[in-house]
C-alpha cells in the first residue's frame, strides 16, 4: 500500500546533503548536532511554558474558574510573564548546604529529560536519533532524573527536603517497574524496541485497538504508573505542600526552582508522548485495516498534528487525574504498586504473549 503521509525526511536529507557538500564530514556532523540541540532546546522551553499555561487552564476548568485571563488574549502570555519574573528573582545561597551538589542537582534532572526527548518521533521523518533500542533508551535515560531529586533533597540540608527526596526516590524506583513492564507488553505485540518500527507496525490500527484486552490493561497501568513516576498528583508526595512545605525543592529559588518545575512538566510531556507513540500510534493517522479510502483521507492530515493531538489528549488525562483525586499516603502508594499494579502487569504480559502466539490480535 502506498502511503500518502508526507515524509519530512525529504527536507532533512536534502539539508544533510547540502551540508555534506559544503563542509568536511566533521563540520557537517558538528553543525547538525548543534542545530538539532538548539531546536530541541527551543522546543523544550516553549512546550514547558505552554504546559504550565495548559495546567492552569485545565485546573481552572475542573474547579469552575476562568484561570489566567489578563495577560494577552485568554491569558496566553501569562506564563511568559511568570518566566521573566522567575528569571529576575534572587538566587538565595544556603549557608550550610553542599554548594556543589546543590547547584548541579537541577541540571541532572533537566539533562535526563532533555536526553529522552531526542529519541521521540515527532512526525514522519522528523526523528533525531532512531535507536535500535528506542524505548529502552528512553527508559534508561529518564531513570537518571531521580538522582537529581535525591541530591537536591540531601544537599539542601533541610529535613523537609530530605523527606521529600526519600519519598520521591522510593516512589520512582518502584513505579519504574510498572512503566517498564507495561511497555514490554506492547513490545511483545510489536516485536521490536525501535520506535520507528513500532509506529510503522501500527499502520493497520493502533496497538490499543489491535491488542484489545491486554493492550487496554497495559495502557491503564502505564497511565497510572507514569503519573506516579513523574511525581504528579495524586502521587505528588515528594512535594506535598501541606506536610513538607515544598519537598525536595523547598530551598531552591529563582531560575533553579524554574528548572525543577520545567523538568517536571517536560517529564509529563515525555511520558505522554511515549504513551501516544506506543499505544496510540504516534504520528500514524487513524487507520482501520482494509478501509483503503478512509485511510487515504486520514493520511491528508499532517502526521505532526496527529502526534500533537494524541500527546495533548494523554496530557489532558494526566491533568484531570491531578485535579480530581486526593493525594495518597506513602503506604497506600507503595501498596498500589507492589500489591496491585505489579501482579496485574505480570499476568498481563503472559496474556499478551499467549494472544500473540495464538494470533488472536488483529
Amino acid at each position, binding site marked *: 500500500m502506498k502511503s500518502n503521509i508526507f515524509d519530512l525526511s525529504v527536507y532533512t536529507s536534502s539539508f544533510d546533503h547540502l551540508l555534506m557538500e559544503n563542509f568536511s*564530514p*566533521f563540520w557537517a*556532523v*558538528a553543525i547538525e548536532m548543534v542545530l538539532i540541540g538548539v531546536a530541541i532546546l527551543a522546543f523544550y522551553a516553549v512546550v514547558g511554558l505552554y504546559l504550565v499555561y495548559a495546567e492552569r487552564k485545565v485546573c481552572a476548568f475542573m474547579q469552575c474558574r476562568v484561570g489566567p485571563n489578563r495577560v494577552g488574549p485568554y491569558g496566553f502570555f501569562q506564563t511568559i510573564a511568570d518566566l521573566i519574573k522567575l528569571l529576575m528573582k534572587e538566587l538565595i545561597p544556603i549557608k*550550610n*548546604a*553542599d554548594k*556543589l*551538589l546543590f547547584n*548541579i542537582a537541577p541540571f541532572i534532572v533537566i539533562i535526563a529529560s532533555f536526553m529522552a526527548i531526542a529519541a521521540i518521533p515527532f512526525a514522519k521523518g522528523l526523528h533525531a536519533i532512531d*535507536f*535500535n*533500542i528506542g524505548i*529502552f*533508551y528512553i*527508559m*534508561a*535515560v529518564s*531513570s*537518571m532524573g*531521580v*538522582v537529581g531529586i*535525591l*541530591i537536591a*533533597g*540531601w*544537599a539542601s*540540608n533541610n529535613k523537609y527536603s*530530605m523527606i521529600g*527526596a*526519600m519519598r520521591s*526516590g522510593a516512589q520512582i*524506583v518502584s513505579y*519504574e517497574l510498572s512503566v517498564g513492564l507495561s511497555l514490554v507488553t506492547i513490545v511483545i505485540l510489536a*516485536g*521490536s*524496541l525501535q520506535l520507528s518500527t513500532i509506529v510503522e507496525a501500527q499502520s493497520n490500527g493502533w496497538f490499543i485497538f489491535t491488542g484489545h484486552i491486554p493492550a487496554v490493561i497495559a495502557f491503564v497501568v502505564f497511565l497510572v504508573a507514569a503519573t506516579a513516576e513523574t511525581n504528579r498528583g495524586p502521587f505528588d508526595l515528594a512535594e506535598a505542600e501541606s506536610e513538607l512545605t515544598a519537598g525536595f525543592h523547598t530551598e531552591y529559588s529563582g531560575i533553579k526552582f524554574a528548572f525543577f518545575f520545567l523538568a517536571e512538566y517536560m517529564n509529563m510531556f515525555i511520558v505522554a508522548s511515549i504513551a501516544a507513540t506506543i499505544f496510540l500510534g504516534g504520528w500514524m493517522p487513524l487507520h482501520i485495516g482494509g478501509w483503503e479510502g478512509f485511510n487515504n483521507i486520514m493520511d491528508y492530515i499532517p502526521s505532526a498534528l496527529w502526534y500533537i493531538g494524541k500527546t495533548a489528549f494523554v496530557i489532558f488525562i494526566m491533568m484531570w487525574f491531578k485535579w480530581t483525586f486526593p493525594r495518597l499516603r506513602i503506604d497506600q502508594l507503595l501498596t498500589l504498586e507492589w500489591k496491585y499494579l505489579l501482579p496485574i502487569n505480570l499476568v498481563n504480559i503472559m496474556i499478551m504473549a499467549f494472544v500473540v502466539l495464538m494470533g488472536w490480535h488483529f
Partner: protein
Amino acid sequence: MSIHELMFYVFSGMILLFSVLTVTSRRILRAAVYLLFVLVSTAGIYFMLNYQFLAAVQLTLYAGGIVVLIIFSILLTSHISQKFEPIGIKKMVFSALAVAAGAVLTIMTVVGYGFDSTVITSENPDMETIGLSLLSYGKNGYVLPFEVISILLLAAMVASIVIAKKEKSQ
C-alpha cells in the same frame, strides 16, 4: 582528528578525572555523584562504539539502579556535615605505590600485546539476536548462565523477603 577520536578523548578524560575524584573526595555523597559521572561516561563510550544495547543497560543498571541505591543508603545513614578525615602520609604513599604498580603492569600488558589494526565490521546486534542467543543452547548460546543467574536472583529475593518480613505479633 575525527569526531570519534575527539569524543573518545573527551569521554576517557572524564572517566579518568571523575574516577580520581571518586576516591579522593572527602564527602561521601559527592563521591557517589562522581561515580555516577564515571558510569555515564562509560555509557557514552559504548554509544560511541555503536553498541547501544550495552550502553542503555549501563545507564539503567548502574546509573539508574546501583547509584540510586548507593545514594539512598547514604541519605539514610549519614549527615551532610559529615566529612572523612584526611588520610595519613603513610597510607597515601603505600596506596600511591600500589596504584603505580598496577598501572605499570596494565600499561605493559596493553603495549606488549600489540593490537592488530584490523577492521572488524561493526555489528550492532539487535534485540532479537541478543534475545535468541540468551535462550539458545547451541553455539553462542547462553541459556546455562542465564538460568544460573536466575536462580541466584531468586535466592537473593527470597532471602531479602525473609529478612524484611514482619513476625506475626502473638
